[in-house]
């Protein structure tokens, strides 16, 4: 049953050093506030799972929280590279990180399979790609009915998943609206889950087939107003595309990055 906690307490309770963490939100509703809370709390040795690491993992990687990243597209969308990810992979700063890379289709299916409680996902994928040569978690099975060779990947089953959503009601039921990505799958696939929300309301006021995650399938709800910025929250605020562009210069330089983290993450109170 979802407990309504401060973001500080939710992260302190559920994100442990060494944990496997999925922080999802496909471009939309990326849980930046929670990511920065993890940086503030100095978590280390995390295995970070996300289809698109985006700026949120660039920040966590640059801050030294990650030992491994599992992803399928590691760029700054429409802008260029994730320089902190690249610096860690190419030069080992601030530490060498391990990467395991998939395609989007495989990761989406792996989240789906995780939510479905299965150990594997099966897809018609990776045909002719050399990704299976560098990712030993991509295997192939033969369909027992047609003989077709299909790809198989392990399902995603994180220790903790964190997503951001528009709103929760007082019982902790959460509404996700707009580009829903793999957020619901991430929550359902995880052992524990934290959902940050823009606000808590009396009534979700929605339609019969809305993407609502029941409170009893969530561990903690934390209010984090504007918690998805610089990404966006459909119905609340727009994507800060300018910041995405500005990040390129900030993240390109180790000192500029460190200064930015100090000023914008470490020396602020967070949403606690």
């Amino acid at each position, binding site marked *: 049953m979802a407990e309504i906690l401060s973001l500080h307490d939710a992260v302190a309770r559920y994100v442990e050093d060494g944990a496997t963490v999925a922080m999802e939100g496909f471009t939309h509703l990326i849980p930046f506030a929670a990511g920065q809370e993890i940086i503030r709390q100095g978590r280390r040795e995390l295995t970070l799972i996300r289809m698109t690491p985006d700026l949120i993992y660039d920040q966590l990687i640059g801050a030294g929280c990650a030992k491994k990243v599992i992803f399928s597209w590691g760029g700054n969308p429409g802008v260029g590279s994730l320089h902190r990810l690249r610096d860690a992979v190419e030069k080992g700063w601030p530490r060498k990180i391990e990467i395991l890379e998939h*395609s989007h289709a495989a990761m989406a299916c792996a989240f789906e399979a995780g939510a479905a409680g299965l150990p594997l996902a099966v*897809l*018609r*994928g990776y045909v*002719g790609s050399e990704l299976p040569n560098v990712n030993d978690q991509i295997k192939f099975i033969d369909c027992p009915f*047609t003989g077709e060779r299909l790809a198989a990947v392990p399902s995603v089953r994180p220790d903790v998943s964190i997503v951001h959503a528009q709103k929760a009601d007082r019982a902790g039921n959460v509404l996700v609206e707009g580009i829903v990505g793999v957020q619901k799958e991430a929550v359902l696939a995880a052992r524990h889950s934290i959902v940050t929300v823009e606000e808590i309301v009396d009534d979700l006021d929605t339609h019969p087939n809305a993407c609502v995650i029941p409170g009893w399938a969530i561990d903690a709800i934390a209010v984090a107003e504007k918690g998805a910025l610089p990404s966006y929250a459909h119905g609340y605020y727009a*994507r800060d595309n300018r910041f995405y562009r500005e990040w390129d210069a900030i993240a390109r330089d180790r000192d500029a990055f460190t200064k930015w983290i100090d000023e914008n993450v470490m020396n602020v109170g967070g949403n606690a």
Partner: protein
Amino acid sequence: MSPEEKTLDYTAGEMMTVTAARALVNGMTCFVGIGLPSEAANLARLTHAPDVVLIYESGTLQTKPDVLPLSIGDGELCESALTTVSVPEMFRYWLQGGKVDVGFLGTAQIDRFANLNTTLIGDYQAPKVRLPGGGGAPEIATNAGEVFITLKHSPRAFVRDVDFITTLGFGRDGKGRDGVPSIGQGPTRVISDLCVMKPDSATKELTVVSLHPGVTRADVVEATGWAIRFADELEITPAPRGEELEILRGLKARTERAHAGQ
């Protein structure tokens, strides 16, 4: 070409985008990659193909953005979509389920068999340059009916053999799709800022079928990392029409304003 069109000024980039846009047929269902493909696909929708169905991997089905998205999941895409589905559903029901006529992709590197590399330059364990990775491309390229590719010409982009096959064109030997069940046709055309290429029907090696106006064979050869062949009946790509340029420039100006906005 009529005289007044001949005198139009346009950039090589505009030439590329307009040509890429023209490849899309009205009514087609197109799975759109971010960047150049998105620009071309939306230009098509705003010109000759108003009923082209644009799908983005963020789950937005049949979207009609007024400005180009910076990311694959900008709010604009959802707000102007017929509906928005989850990302697993997008890849499972709509792409893998065979509902996509054409996948429209960009890439960092492409080789003579139209294999795409968006993973890295150099060796996997010690990369010279780490690129973003596969994203949706590996399965778009195999599960869509066919694939269009658009990128700028340069010897670093057009290489004989990609360092890494992120996404299948026709494999290292041109036979990568032979005998594979339920696989799409693969890349049927590649549009650069210099020319249009198609795979040779027998060998699958990319062959120039059309040069953009003012571009010479030597220009293409110089910008290509292998000894590229030219079709026997080499055509000249029709230049952009005034209306196409106007709509493209309007789209880019609106986009620029919107992205600078916040």
